[in-house]
Protein backbone atom coordinates (compact mmCIF):
# COMPACT_ATOMS: atom_id res chain seq x y z
CA UNK A 1 0.00 0.00 0.00
CA UNK A 2 1.45 3.34 -1.00
CA UNK A 3 0.96 6.32 1.27
CA UNK A 4 -0.80 9.29 -0.32
CA UNK A 5 1.37 12.39 -0.37
CA UNK A 6 0.46 14.63 2.53
CA UNK A 7 -0.82 18.00 1.43
CA UNK A 8 0.90 20.89 3.11
CA UNK A 9 -0.96 23.78 4.64
CA UNK A 10 -1.53 26.39 1.96
CA UNK A 11 -1.44 29.43 4.08
CA UNK A 12 0.18 32.77 3.40
CA UNK A 13 0.89 31.71 -0.15
CA UNK A 14 -2.46 30.03 -0.59
CA UNK A 15 -3.80 30.12 -4.11
CA UNK A 16 -7.29 29.17 -5.08
CA UNK A 17 -6.24 28.57 -8.69
CA UNK A 18 -6.47 25.01 -9.91
CA UNK A 19 -3.55 23.51 -11.75
CA UNK A 20 -3.46 24.69 -15.35
CA UNK A 21 -6.13 27.35 -14.76
CA UNK A 22 -5.64 30.71 -16.49
CA UNK A 23 -4.66 33.32 -13.95
CA UNK A 24 -3.74 36.98 -13.67
CA UNK A 25 -1.15 38.13 -11.18
CA UNK A 26 -2.26 40.76 -8.64
CA UNK A 27 -5.28 42.04 -10.62
CA UNK A 28 -6.27 44.45 -7.85
CA UNK A 29 -2.86 46.13 -7.66
CA UNK A 30 -2.58 46.55 -11.42
CA UNK A 31 -6.16 47.76 -11.83
CA UNK A 32 -5.62 50.33 -9.07
CA UNK A 33 -2.48 51.59 -10.79
CA UNK A 34 -4.45 52.12 -14.01
CA UNK A 35 -7.28 53.87 -12.15
CA UNK A 36 -4.80 56.06 -10.26
CA UNK A 37 -3.21 57.20 -13.52
CA UNK A 38 -6.57 58.69 -14.42
CA UNK A 39 -7.68 59.86 -10.97
CA UNK A 40 -5.31 61.81 -8.76
CA UNK A 41 -7.60 61.53 -5.75
CA UNK A 42 -6.69 57.88 -5.26
CA UNK A 43 -4.28 57.01 -2.45
CA UNK A 44 -3.35 53.59 -1.06
CA UNK A 45 -3.06 52.87 2.66
CA UNK A 46 -2.29 49.57 4.33
CA UNK A 47 -1.76 48.09 7.78
CA UNK A 48 1.50 46.20 7.24
CA UNK A 49 -0.03 43.98 4.57
CA UNK A 50 0.79 45.82 1.36
CA UNK A 51 2.62 42.84 -0.11
CA UNK A 52 -0.15 40.48 0.89
CA UNK A 53 -3.02 42.50 -0.53
CA UNK A 54 -1.31 43.32 -3.85
CA UNK A 55 -1.28 47.01 -2.87
CA UNK A 56 2.52 47.00 -3.16
CA UNK A 57 2.07 47.12 -6.93
CA UNK A 58 0.40 50.50 -6.45
CA UNK A 59 3.04 51.51 -3.91
CA UNK A 60 5.86 50.80 -6.35
CA UNK A 61 4.22 52.89 -9.04
CA UNK A 62 3.10 55.74 -6.78
CA UNK A 63 5.35 55.83 -3.71
CA UNK A 64 4.14 59.36 -2.85
CA UNK A 65 0.55 58.17 -2.75
CA UNK A 66 1.22 55.04 -0.71
CA UNK A 67 0.84 55.18 3.08
CA UNK A 68 2.18 52.43 5.29
CA UNK A 69 0.17 52.85 8.51
CA UNK A 70 1.70 49.95 10.42
CA UNK A 71 -0.02 47.03 12.08
CA UNK A 72 -2.85 49.21 13.38
CA UNK A 73 -6.19 48.51 11.74
CA UNK A 74 -8.20 50.94 13.87
CA UNK A 75 -5.84 53.71 12.83
CA UNK A 76 -5.97 52.54 9.21
CA UNK A 77 -9.73 53.07 9.12
CA UNK A 78 -9.61 56.38 11.03
CA UNK A 79 -6.80 57.77 8.89
CA UNK A 80 -8.66 56.65 5.77
CA UNK A 81 -11.68 58.58 7.02
CA UNK A 82 -9.46 61.63 7.50
CA UNK A 83 -8.04 61.31 3.98
CA UNK A 84 -11.54 61.06 2.54
CA UNK A 85 -12.56 64.15 4.53
CA UNK A 86 -9.81 66.03 2.73
CA UNK A 87 -11.14 64.96 -0.66
CA UNK A 88 -9.03 61.92 -1.45
CA UNK A 89 -10.24 58.42 -2.36
CA UNK A 90 -8.31 56.09 -0.08
CA UNK A 91 -8.08 52.36 -0.82
CA UNK A 92 -7.35 50.69 2.53
CA UNK A 93 -6.04 47.15 2.64
CA UNK A 94 -5.66 44.55 5.34
CA UNK A 95 -6.99 41.04 5.91
CA UNK A 96 -10.74 40.51 6.12
CA UNK A 97 -10.52 39.21 9.69
CA UNK A 98 -8.84 42.38 10.90
CA UNK A 99 -11.11 44.74 8.98
CA UNK A 100 -14.24 43.08 10.29
CA UNK A 101 -13.42 41.79 13.75
CA UNK A 102 -10.94 44.40 14.94
CA UNK A 103 -11.83 47.63 13.19
CA UNK A 104 -15.64 47.43 13.04
CA UNK A 105 -16.42 50.49 15.18
CA UNK A 106 -13.89 52.56 13.27
CA UNK A 107 -15.45 51.69 9.93
CA UNK A 108 -18.94 52.16 11.34
CA UNK A 109 -18.57 55.53 13.07
CA UNK A 110 -15.71 57.21 11.21
CA UNK A 111 -16.58 56.04 7.68
CA UNK A 112 -20.06 54.56 7.15
CA UNK A 113 -22.08 56.93 9.34
CA UNK A 114 -20.55 59.83 7.44
CA UNK A 115 -20.91 58.02 4.09
CA UNK A 116 -17.28 58.85 3.36
CA UNK A 117 -15.65 57.85 0.10
CA UNK A 118 -13.42 55.12 1.52
CA UNK A 119 -12.75 51.76 -0.14
CA UNK A 120 -11.79 48.87 2.14
CA UNK A 121 -10.20 46.01 0.25
CA UNK A 122 -9.39 42.97 2.31
CA UNK A 123 -7.66 39.72 1.53
CA UNK A 124 -8.25 36.16 2.74
CA UNK A 125 -12.05 36.25 2.77
CA UNK A 126 -13.92 33.15 3.87
CA UNK A 127 -11.88 29.98 3.52
CA UNK A 128 -8.92 31.09 1.42
CA UNK A 129 -6.13 30.28 3.84
CA UNK A 130 -5.21 27.20 5.80
CA UNK A 131 -3.99 29.24 8.77
CA UNK A 132 -7.03 28.52 10.89
CA UNK A 133 -9.60 30.81 12.51
CA UNK A 134 -7.18 33.68 13.22
CA UNK A 135 -6.96 34.30 9.48
CA UNK A 136 -10.19 32.80 8.12
CA UNK A 137 -12.84 35.53 7.78
CA UNK A 138 -15.74 33.16 7.59
CA UNK A 139 -18.16 35.71 9.06
CA UNK A 140 -17.07 39.08 7.66
CA UNK A 141 -20.15 39.52 5.49
CA UNK A 142 -22.42 38.66 8.43
CA UNK A 143 -20.62 41.31 10.47
CA UNK A 144 -20.78 43.99 7.79
CA UNK A 145 -24.30 43.38 6.47
CA UNK A 146 -25.67 45.08 9.57
CA UNK A 147 -23.76 48.28 8.88
CA UNK A 148 -25.90 50.95 7.17
CA UNK A 149 -24.46 52.77 4.14
CA UNK A 150 -21.78 50.14 3.48
CA UNK A 151 -21.70 48.53 0.03
CA UNK A 152 -20.34 44.96 0.13
CA UNK A 153 -18.71 43.35 -2.91
CA UNK A 154 -17.56 39.73 -3.25
CA UNK A 155 -15.96 39.41 -6.72
CA UNK A 156 -15.38 36.11 -8.43
CA UNK A 157 -12.16 36.33 -10.39
CA UNK A 158 -9.46 38.58 -11.87
CA UNK A 159 -11.81 40.13 -14.42
CA UNK A 160 -14.40 40.87 -11.76
CA UNK A 161 -11.77 42.51 -9.55
CA UNK A 162 -10.43 44.66 -12.39
CA UNK A 163 -13.91 45.89 -13.28
CA UNK A 164 -14.89 46.31 -9.63
CA UNK A 165 -11.93 48.64 -8.98
CA UNK A 166 -13.14 50.99 -11.72
CA UNK A 167 -16.70 50.79 -10.43
CA UNK A 168 -15.57 51.58 -6.88
CA UNK A 169 -13.69 54.66 -8.07
CA UNK A 170 -16.79 55.84 -9.95
CA UNK A 171 -19.02 55.19 -6.93
CA UNK A 172 -19.22 57.87 -4.25
CA UNK A 173 -19.45 56.14 -0.88
CA UNK A 174 -17.93 53.52 1.38
CA UNK A 175 -17.31 50.06 -0.07
CA UNK A 176 -16.01 46.84 1.43
CA UNK A 177 -14.53 44.46 -1.16
CA UNK A 178 -13.35 40.93 -0.47
CA UNK A 179 -10.11 40.39 -2.32
CA UNK A 180 -8.63 37.39 -4.09
CA UNK A 181 -4.95 38.15 -4.34
CA UNK A 182 -1.80 36.74 -5.91
CA UNK A 183 -2.39 34.54 -8.95
CA UNK A 184 -6.11 34.94 -9.38
CA UNK A 185 -8.06 32.71 -11.80
CA UNK A 186 -9.76 34.22 -14.85
CA UNK A 187 -13.04 32.52 -15.58
CA UNK A 188 -15.55 35.23 -16.49
CA UNK A 189 -13.82 36.04 -19.81
CA UNK A 190 -15.85 33.23 -21.36
CA UNK A 191 -19.03 35.28 -20.79
CA UNK A 192 -18.49 38.23 -23.17
CA UNK A 193 -21.68 39.99 -22.08
CA UNK A 194 -20.63 40.09 -18.47
CA UNK A 195 -19.80 43.49 -16.98
CA UNK A 196 -19.42 44.09 -13.25
CA UNK A 197 -21.83 46.71 -11.95
CA UNK A 198 -22.33 47.61 -8.30
CA UNK A 199 -25.71 46.33 -7.16
CA UNK A 200 -26.29 44.07 -10.19
CA UNK A 201 -26.61 40.29 -10.28
CA UNK A 202 -26.14 38.74 -13.72
CA UNK A 203 -27.00 35.37 -15.19
CA UNK A 204 -23.95 33.59 -16.55
CA UNK A 205 -25.48 30.25 -17.56
CA UNK A 206 -29.02 29.08 -18.24
CA UNK A 207 -30.53 25.72 -17.36
CA UNK A 208 -33.97 24.58 -16.28
CA UNK A 209 -33.14 21.90 -13.68
CA UNK A 210 -31.77 24.07 -10.89
CA UNK A 211 -30.58 27.57 -10.05
CA UNK A 212 -27.34 28.41 -8.28
CA UNK A 213 -27.05 31.95 -6.96
CA UNK A 214 -23.41 32.57 -6.04
CA UNK A 215 -20.91 35.21 -5.07
CA UNK A 216 -17.14 35.40 -4.84
CA UNK A 217 -15.06 32.38 -5.67
CA UNK A 218 -18.16 30.20 -5.35
CA UNK A 219 -19.37 31.61 -8.66
CA UNK A 220 -16.24 30.05 -10.13
CA UNK A 221 -17.12 26.76 -8.48
CA UNK A 222 -20.73 27.04 -9.64
CA UNK A 223 -19.67 27.57 -13.26
CA UNK A 224 -17.28 24.61 -13.10
CA UNK A 225 -19.98 22.52 -11.44
CA UNK A 226 -22.54 23.53 -14.07
CA UNK A 227 -20.17 22.31 -16.80
CA UNK A 228 -19.73 18.95 -15.08
CA UNK A 229 -23.45 18.62 -14.33
CA UNK A 230 -24.23 19.30 -17.99
CA UNK A 231 -22.18 16.23 -18.87
CA UNK A 232 -24.48 14.27 -16.54
CA UNK A 233 -27.50 15.76 -18.31
CA UNK A 234 -28.39 18.21 -15.53
CA UNK A 235 -28.87 21.76 -16.74
CA UNK A 236 -28.19 24.45 -14.17
CA UNK A 237 -28.59 28.21 -14.23
CA UNK A 238 -25.85 30.25 -12.56
CA UNK A 239 -26.65 33.74 -11.28
CA UNK A 240 -23.56 35.66 -10.21
CA UNK A 241 -24.35 38.09 -7.41
CA UNK A 242 -21.11 39.91 -6.57
CA UNK A 243 -22.81 42.72 -4.67
CA UNK A 244 -24.05 41.38 -1.35
CA UNK A 245 -25.36 44.77 -0.27
CA UNK A 246 -27.36 46.38 -1.72
CA UNK A 247 -28.79 43.13 -3.03
CA UNK A 248 -30.20 43.01 -6.57
CA UNK A 249 -33.60 41.93 -5.33
CA UNK A 250 -35.42 42.25 -8.65
CA UNK A 251 -33.05 40.01 -10.62
CA UNK A 252 -32.91 37.41 -7.87
CA UNK A 253 -36.68 37.21 -7.51
CA UNK A 254 -37.13 37.03 -11.30
CA UNK A 255 -34.58 34.21 -11.61
CA UNK A 256 -36.11 32.22 -8.77
CA UNK A 257 -39.59 32.63 -10.28
CA UNK A 258 -38.25 31.31 -13.57
CA UNK A 259 -37.18 28.18 -11.70
CA UNK A 260 -40.43 27.56 -9.89
CA UNK A 261 -40.57 24.02 -8.57
CA UNK A 262 -36.83 23.53 -9.05
CA UNK A 263 -34.21 23.61 -6.34
CA UNK A 264 -32.51 26.92 -5.65
CA UNK A 265 -28.98 26.87 -4.22
CA UNK A 266 -27.12 29.82 -2.78
CA UNK A 267 -23.36 29.23 -2.79
CA UNK A 268 -20.95 31.41 -0.86
CA UNK A 269 -17.44 31.34 0.56
CA UNK A 270 -18.76 32.32 4.00
CA UNK A 271 -20.56 30.82 6.95
CA UNK A 272 -24.17 29.91 6.20
CA UNK A 273 -25.08 32.33 9.02
CA UNK A 274 -25.77 35.89 7.95
CA UNK A 275 -24.33 35.90 4.45
CA UNK A 276 -25.71 35.87 0.91
CA UNK A 277 -27.72 32.71 1.56
CA UNK A 278 -29.72 34.16 4.42
CA UNK A 279 -30.05 37.47 2.59
CA UNK A 280 -31.63 35.67 -0.38
CA UNK A 281 -33.76 33.49 1.88
CA UNK A 282 -35.17 36.52 3.68
CA UNK A 283 -35.76 38.28 0.37
CA UNK A 284 -37.79 35.38 -0.98
CA UNK A 285 -39.86 35.25 2.21
CA UNK A 286 -40.55 38.99 2.04
CA UNK A 287 -41.59 38.71 -1.60
CA UNK A 288 -43.77 35.67 -0.98
CA UNK A 289 -41.74 33.55 -3.38
CA UNK A 290 -41.81 29.89 -2.44
CA UNK A 291 -38.71 27.91 -3.39
CA UNK A 292 -36.91 24.75 -2.43
CA UNK A 293 -33.97 26.47 -0.81
CA UNK A 294 -30.49 25.04 -0.19
CA UNK A 295 -27.35 26.64 1.14
CA UNK A 296 -23.84 25.78 0.05
CA UNK A 297 -21.44 27.49 2.40
CA UNK A 298 -19.19 27.06 5.38
CA UNK A 299 -20.57 25.53 8.57
CA UNK A 300 -21.25 27.63 11.67
CA UNK A 301 -18.03 26.63 13.39
CA UNK A 302 -14.38 27.60 13.66
CA UNK A 303 -12.71 25.79 10.79
CA UNK A 304 -9.70 23.53 10.79
CA UNK A 305 -6.22 24.54 9.75
CA UNK A 306 -4.83 22.60 6.81
CA UNK A 307 -4.37 22.48 3.07
CA UNK A 308 -6.96 24.47 1.14
CA UNK A 309 -8.02 21.71 -1.28
CA UNK A 310 -8.57 19.39 1.66
CA UNK A 311 -10.55 22.01 3.55
CA UNK A 312 -12.67 23.01 0.55
CA UNK A 313 -13.66 19.36 0.18
CA UNK A 314 -14.18 18.94 3.92
CA UNK A 315 -16.47 21.93 4.20
CA UNK A 316 -18.35 21.38 0.95
CA UNK A 317 -17.22 24.31 -1.20
CA UNK A 318 -15.03 22.48 -3.73
CA UNK A 319 -16.38 21.98 -7.24
CA UNK A 320 -16.63 18.25 -6.56
CA UNK A 321 -18.77 18.85 -3.48
CA UNK A 322 -21.02 21.33 -5.29
CA UNK A 323 -21.56 18.86 -8.14
CA UNK A 324 -22.35 16.09 -5.70
CA UNK A 325 -24.82 18.15 -3.67
CA UNK A 326 -26.68 19.59 -6.66
CA UNK A 327 -26.81 16.26 -8.52
CA UNK A 328 -28.06 14.48 -5.41
CA UNK A 329 -30.91 16.92 -4.82
CA UNK A 330 -31.93 17.13 -8.50
CA UNK A 331 -31.94 13.30 -8.72
CA UNK A 332 -34.07 13.03 -5.58
CA UNK A 333 -36.71 15.28 -7.12
CA UNK A 334 -36.94 13.52 -10.46
Amino acid at each position, binding site marked *: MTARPRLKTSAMIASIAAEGQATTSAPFGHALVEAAKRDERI*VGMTADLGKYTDLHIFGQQFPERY*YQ*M*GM*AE*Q*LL*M*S*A*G*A*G*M*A*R*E*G*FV*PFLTTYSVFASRRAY*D*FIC*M*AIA*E*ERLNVKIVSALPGLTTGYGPSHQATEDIAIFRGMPNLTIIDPCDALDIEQAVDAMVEFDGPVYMRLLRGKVPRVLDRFPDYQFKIGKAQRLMAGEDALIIASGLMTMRAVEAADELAEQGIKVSVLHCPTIKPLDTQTIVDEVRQHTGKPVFVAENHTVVGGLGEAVGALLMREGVCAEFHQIGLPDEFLDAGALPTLHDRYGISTREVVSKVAGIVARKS
Partner: protein
Amino acid sequence: MMGTPAQSVVSDDIENLRHHAYRIRRNALLMGEVQGQGYVGQALGIADVLAVAYCRQLNMRADDPEWEGRDRFLLSIGHYAIALYAALIEAGVISADEIDNYGSDDSMLPMSGMAAYTPGMEITGGSLGHGLGIGVGMALGLKRKNSGSRIYNLLSDGELNEGSTWEAVASAAHWKLDNLIAIVDVNDQQADDRSSTVLNYEPVADKWQAFGWETWRVDGNDLTALVEAFDQAVNSTSDKPRVLICDTLMGRGVPFLESRDKTHFIRVDENEWSLALQQLDEVYGISAEEQS
Protein backbone atom coordinates in the same frame (compact mmCIF):
# COMPACT_ATOMS: atom_id res chain seq x y z
CA MET B 1 11.86 69.29 26.21
CA MET B 2 8.69 70.39 27.83
CA GLY B 3 7.99 74.06 27.30
CA THR B 4 7.22 76.43 30.15
CA PRO B 5 4.91 79.25 29.10
CA ALA B 6 6.25 82.73 29.87
CA GLN B 7 3.94 85.38 31.33
CA SER B 8 4.12 88.02 28.60
CA VAL B 9 0.72 88.20 27.01
CA VAL B 10 -0.90 91.56 26.57
CA SER B 11 -3.42 91.96 29.33
CA ASP B 12 -6.10 93.36 27.00
CA ASP B 13 -6.11 90.10 25.08
CA ILE B 14 -6.53 88.18 28.27
CA GLU B 15 -9.37 90.39 29.42
CA ASN B 16 -11.15 89.81 26.10
CA LEU B 17 -10.62 86.09 26.33
CA ARG B 18 -11.93 86.17 29.88
CA HIS B 19 -15.20 87.60 28.59
CA HIS B 20 -15.36 84.99 25.83
CA ALA B 21 -14.76 82.24 28.37
CA TYR B 22 -17.49 83.67 30.58
CA ARG B 23 -20.00 83.64 27.74
CA ILE B 24 -19.01 80.10 26.69
CA ARG B 25 -19.69 78.97 30.27
CA ARG B 26 -22.96 80.87 30.31
CA ASN B 27 -24.06 79.35 26.95
CA ALA B 28 -23.31 75.89 28.31
CA LEU B 29 -25.30 76.48 31.49
CA LEU B 30 -28.25 77.80 29.50
CA MET B 31 -28.20 74.70 27.28
CA GLY B 32 -27.89 72.46 30.31
CA GLU B 33 -30.94 74.12 31.78
CA VAL B 34 -32.96 73.40 28.62
CA GLN B 35 -32.54 69.67 29.10
CA GLY B 36 -32.12 69.74 32.88
CA GLN B 37 -28.90 67.78 32.45
CA GLY B 38 -25.72 67.54 30.46
CA TYR B 39 -21.97 67.39 30.66
CA VAL B 40 -21.82 70.89 32.08
CA GLY B 41 -18.93 70.04 34.40
CA GLN B 42 -16.70 69.29 31.40
CA ALA B 43 -17.98 72.37 29.55
CA LEU B 44 -17.17 74.66 32.47
CA GLY B 45 -13.76 73.02 32.84
CA ILE B 46 -12.73 73.33 29.20
CA ALA B 47 -14.26 76.78 28.50
CA ASP B 48 -10.95 78.63 28.82
CA VAL B 49 -9.24 76.31 26.33
CA LEU B 50 -12.13 76.74 23.89
CA ALA B 51 -12.09 80.51 24.33
CA VAL B 52 -8.42 80.63 23.34
CA ALA B 53 -8.98 78.19 20.47
CA TYR B 54 -12.13 79.70 18.98
CA CYS B 55 -11.69 83.36 19.84
CA ARG B 56 -7.96 83.74 19.19
CA GLN B 57 -6.19 80.79 17.65
CA LEU B 58 -8.20 79.09 14.93
CA ASN B 59 -7.99 80.41 11.41
CA MET B 60 -11.67 80.18 10.48
CA ARG B 61 -14.62 81.99 8.93
CA ALA B 62 -17.70 82.03 11.13
CA ASP B 63 -20.01 82.46 8.13
CA ASP B 64 -18.35 79.66 6.15
CA PRO B 65 -17.56 76.79 8.51
CA GLU B 66 -16.42 74.55 5.64
CA TRP B 67 -14.01 77.08 4.15
CA GLU B 68 -11.15 75.04 2.66
CA GLY B 69 -8.46 77.20 4.25
CA ARG B 70 -9.76 76.76 7.80
CA ASP B 71 -7.98 75.11 10.68
CA ARG B 72 -9.88 71.94 11.53
CA PHE B 73 -10.94 71.41 15.15
CA LEU B 74 -11.86 67.79 15.84
CA LEU B 75 -13.86 66.98 18.96
CA SER B 76 -13.00 63.37 19.80
CA ILE B 77 -15.16 63.43 22.87
CA GLY B 78 -18.71 63.61 21.57
CA HIS B 79 -20.17 64.08 25.05
CA TYR B 80 -18.35 67.45 25.24
CA ALA B 81 -20.61 68.64 22.43
CA ILE B 82 -22.36 71.06 24.78
CA ALA B 83 -19.00 72.76 25.35
CA LEU B 84 -18.21 72.99 21.65
CA TYR B 85 -21.71 74.31 20.84
CA ALA B 86 -21.19 76.97 23.49
CA ALA B 87 -17.92 77.94 21.80
CA LEU B 88 -19.39 77.82 18.27
CA ILE B 89 -22.15 80.15 19.44
CA GLU B 90 -19.59 82.51 20.97
CA ALA B 91 -17.52 82.39 17.76
CA GLY B 92 -20.60 83.22 15.69
CA VAL B 93 -20.77 79.95 13.76
CA ILE B 94 -24.09 78.98 15.36
CA SER B 95 -26.87 81.41 16.26
CA ALA B 96 -27.55 81.93 19.97
CA ASP B 97 -31.19 81.21 19.17
CA GLU B 98 -30.26 77.53 18.90
CA ILE B 99 -29.63 77.35 22.65
CA ASP B 100 -33.34 76.76 23.25
CA ASN B 101 -33.28 73.73 20.89
CA TYR B 102 -30.36 71.99 22.56
CA GLY B 103 -30.91 68.22 22.67
CA SER B 104 -34.46 68.51 21.35
CA ASP B 105 -35.98 66.52 18.49
CA ASP B 106 -34.69 67.67 15.08
CA SER B 107 -32.21 70.06 16.70
CA MET B 108 -28.87 70.82 15.06
CA LEU B 109 -27.43 70.46 18.57
CA PRO B 110 -27.83 66.81 19.60
CA MET B 111 -26.56 65.68 23.00
CA SER B 112 -23.57 63.89 21.47
CA GLY B 113 -21.54 65.62 18.77
CA MET B 114 -22.21 64.47 15.20
CA ALA B 115 -20.71 65.95 12.06
CA ALA B 116 -23.83 65.70 9.96
CA TYR B 117 -25.90 67.76 12.40
CA THR B 118 -23.89 70.81 13.33
CA PRO B 119 -22.00 73.46 11.36
CA GLY B 120 -18.44 73.50 12.66
CA MET B 121 -18.59 69.96 14.07
CA GLU B 122 -15.94 68.27 11.94
CA ILE B 123 -16.34 64.65 13.09
CA THR B 124 -18.66 62.31 14.95
CA GLY B 125 -16.96 61.61 18.25
CA GLY B 126 -19.42 59.74 20.46
CA SER B 127 -17.34 56.58 20.39
CA LEU B 128 -14.05 57.51 22.01
CA GLY B 129 -10.65 56.95 20.48
CA HIS B 130 -11.54 58.04 16.94
CA GLY B 131 -10.51 61.68 16.78
CA LEU B 132 -6.75 61.54 16.75
CA GLY B 133 -6.67 58.78 14.11
CA ILE B 134 -8.96 60.81 11.86
CA GLY B 135 -6.71 63.77 12.63
CA VAL B 136 -3.71 61.80 11.39
CA GLY B 137 -5.47 61.09 8.09
CA MET B 138 -6.60 64.72 7.72
CA ALA B 139 -3.12 66.02 8.56
CA LEU B 140 -1.65 63.70 5.93
CA GLY B 141 -4.31 64.89 3.49
CA LEU B 142 -3.54 68.55 4.19
CA LYS B 143 0.13 67.88 3.51
CA ARG B 144 -0.77 66.16 0.23
CA LYS B 145 -2.63 69.35 -0.71
CA ASN B 146 0.26 71.58 0.43
CA SER B 147 -2.22 73.28 2.74
CA GLY B 148 -1.02 75.46 5.60
CA SER B 149 -4.08 74.61 7.67
CA ARG B 150 -3.70 72.84 10.99
CA ILE B 151 -5.61 70.05 12.68
CA TYR B 152 -6.51 70.58 16.33
CA ASN B 153 -7.91 67.60 18.20
CA LEU B 154 -9.47 67.94 21.64
CA LEU B 155 -9.40 64.67 23.50
CA SER B 156 -9.78 63.75 27.14
CA ASP B 157 -7.63 61.99 29.68
CA GLY B 158 -10.20 59.18 29.79
CA GLU B 159 -9.77 58.78 26.05
CA LEU B 160 -6.16 57.82 26.65
CA ASN B 161 -7.56 54.47 27.84
CA GLU B 162 -8.46 53.68 24.24
CA GLY B 163 -5.64 51.85 22.50
CA SER B 164 -6.56 53.37 19.16
CA THR B 165 -5.48 56.76 20.54
CA TRP B 166 -1.95 55.43 20.95
CA GLU B 167 -1.91 53.96 17.45
CA ALA B 168 -2.56 57.50 16.28
CA VAL B 169 0.00 59.02 18.66
CA ALA B 170 2.72 56.75 17.28
CA SER B 171 1.66 57.33 13.70
CA ALA B 172 1.62 61.14 13.96
CA ALA B 173 5.22 61.14 15.18
CA HIS B 174 6.26 58.67 12.47
CA TRP B 175 4.78 60.89 9.75
CA LYS B 176 6.21 64.07 11.34
CA LEU B 177 2.81 65.71 11.44
CA ASP B 178 3.86 69.19 12.52
CA ASN B 179 0.43 70.40 11.40
CA LEU B 180 -1.32 68.36 14.11
CA ILE B 181 -1.93 69.80 17.58
CA ALA B 182 -3.58 67.60 20.17
CA ILE B 183 -5.18 69.10 23.26
CA VAL B 184 -5.76 66.74 26.17
CA ASP B 185 -8.26 67.80 28.81
CA VAL B 186 -6.98 66.29 32.05
CA ASN B 187 -9.78 66.68 34.56
CA ASP B 188 -9.16 63.33 36.25
CA GLN B 189 -12.80 62.30 35.77
CA GLN B 190 -14.39 59.56 33.72
CA ALA B 191 -17.58 57.53 33.78
CA ASP B 192 -16.90 55.20 36.70
CA ASP B 193 -14.49 57.18 38.83
CA ARG B 194 -11.41 59.38 38.80
CA SER B 195 -9.26 58.68 35.73
CA SER B 196 -6.26 58.02 37.96
CA THR B 197 -8.29 55.31 39.72
CA VAL B 198 -9.93 53.71 36.68
CA LEU B 199 -6.73 53.37 34.65
CA ASN B 200 -3.89 55.65 35.57
CA TYR B 201 -2.09 57.27 32.63
CA GLU B 202 0.15 59.60 34.61
CA PRO B 203 2.70 60.81 33.91
CA VAL B 204 0.73 61.79 30.82
CA ALA B 205 3.25 64.26 29.40
CA ASP B 206 6.12 61.77 29.64
CA LYS B 207 4.17 59.28 27.56
CA TRP B 208 3.46 61.71 24.71
CA GLN B 209 7.02 62.93 24.83
CA ALA B 210 8.35 59.38 24.67
CA PHE B 211 6.21 58.81 21.58
CA GLY B 212 7.96 61.74 19.87
CA TRP B 213 5.59 64.65 20.44
CA GLU B 214 6.52 68.17 21.44
CA THR B 215 4.78 68.51 24.74
CA TRP B 216 3.45 71.32 26.95
CA ARG B 217 1.60 70.84 30.22
CA VAL B 218 -0.35 73.85 31.42
CA ASP B 219 -3.08 74.91 33.79
CA GLY B 220 -6.02 74.67 31.41
CA ASN B 221 -7.91 77.30 33.37
CA ASP B 222 -5.11 79.88 33.18
CA LEU B 223 -5.76 81.96 30.07
CA THR B 224 -2.30 83.53 30.03
CA ALA B 225 -0.60 80.16 30.25
CA LEU B 226 -2.89 78.77 27.55
CA VAL B 227 -2.20 81.61 25.15
CA GLU B 228 1.55 81.18 25.60
CA ALA B 229 1.33 77.44 25.11
CA PHE B 230 -0.83 77.73 21.98
CA ASP B 231 1.60 80.32 20.57
CA GLN B 232 4.59 78.13 21.25
CA ALA B 233 2.91 75.07 19.75
CA VAL B 234 1.90 76.95 16.61
CA ASN B 235 5.22 78.75 16.18
CA SER B 236 7.50 75.81 16.90
CA THR B 237 9.77 74.98 13.99
CA SER B 238 10.26 71.34 14.92
CA ASP B 239 8.85 68.63 12.65
CA LYS B 240 7.07 66.93 15.55
CA PRO B 241 3.36 66.83 16.24
CA ARG B 242 2.45 68.93 19.27
CA VAL B 243 0.33 68.29 22.33
CA LEU B 244 -1.02 70.65 24.95
CA ILE B 245 -1.86 68.77 28.11
CA CYS B 246 -4.31 70.95 29.97
CA ASP B 247 -5.14 70.34 33.62
CA THR B 248 -8.66 71.60 34.19
CA LEU B 249 -11.13 71.70 37.03
CA MET B 250 -14.57 70.23 36.41
CA GLY B 251 -17.28 72.82 37.03
CA ARG B 252 -14.78 75.70 36.93
CA GLY B 253 -16.45 79.07 37.39
CA VAL B 254 -19.42 77.83 39.42
CA PRO B 255 -18.13 77.25 42.96
CA PHE B 256 -20.91 74.94 44.15
CA LEU B 257 -20.26 72.67 41.15
CA GLU B 258 -16.48 72.81 41.59
CA SER B 259 -16.84 71.61 45.17
CA ARG B 260 -19.54 69.05 44.47
CA ASP B 261 -18.50 65.47 45.04
CA LYS B 262 -17.28 64.87 41.52
CA THR B 263 -18.98 62.61 39.05
CA HIS B 264 -18.56 62.32 35.31
CA PHE B 265 -22.08 63.58 34.84
CA ILE B 266 -22.75 66.36 37.36
CA ARG B 267 -26.25 66.48 38.77
CA VAL B 268 -27.81 69.92 38.77
CA ASP B 269 -31.24 70.13 40.35
CA GLU B 270 -33.92 72.21 38.69
CA ASN B 271 -33.70 75.04 41.22
CA GLU B 272 -29.91 75.13 40.95
CA TRP B 273 -29.57 76.35 37.34
CA SER B 274 -30.31 79.94 38.25
CA LEU B 275 -27.96 79.62 41.22
CA ALA B 276 -25.26 78.35 38.84
CA LEU B 277 -25.73 81.33 36.50
CA GLN B 278 -25.72 83.68 39.48
CA GLN B 279 -22.51 82.22 40.88
CA LEU B 280 -20.88 82.43 37.45
CA ASP B 281 -21.72 86.13 37.29
CA GLU B 282 -20.31 86.63 40.80
CA VAL B 283 -17.09 84.85 39.94
CA TYR B 284 -16.64 87.03 36.85
CA GLY B 285 -17.84 90.16 38.61
CA ILE B 286 -20.55 90.64 36.02
CA SER B 287 -23.96 91.94 37.03
CA ALA B 288 -27.22 90.72 35.54
CA GLU B 289 -27.73 94.09 33.85
CA GLU B 290 -24.32 93.93 32.16
CA GLN B 291 -24.78 90.50 30.58
CA SER B 292 -28.32 91.10 29.38
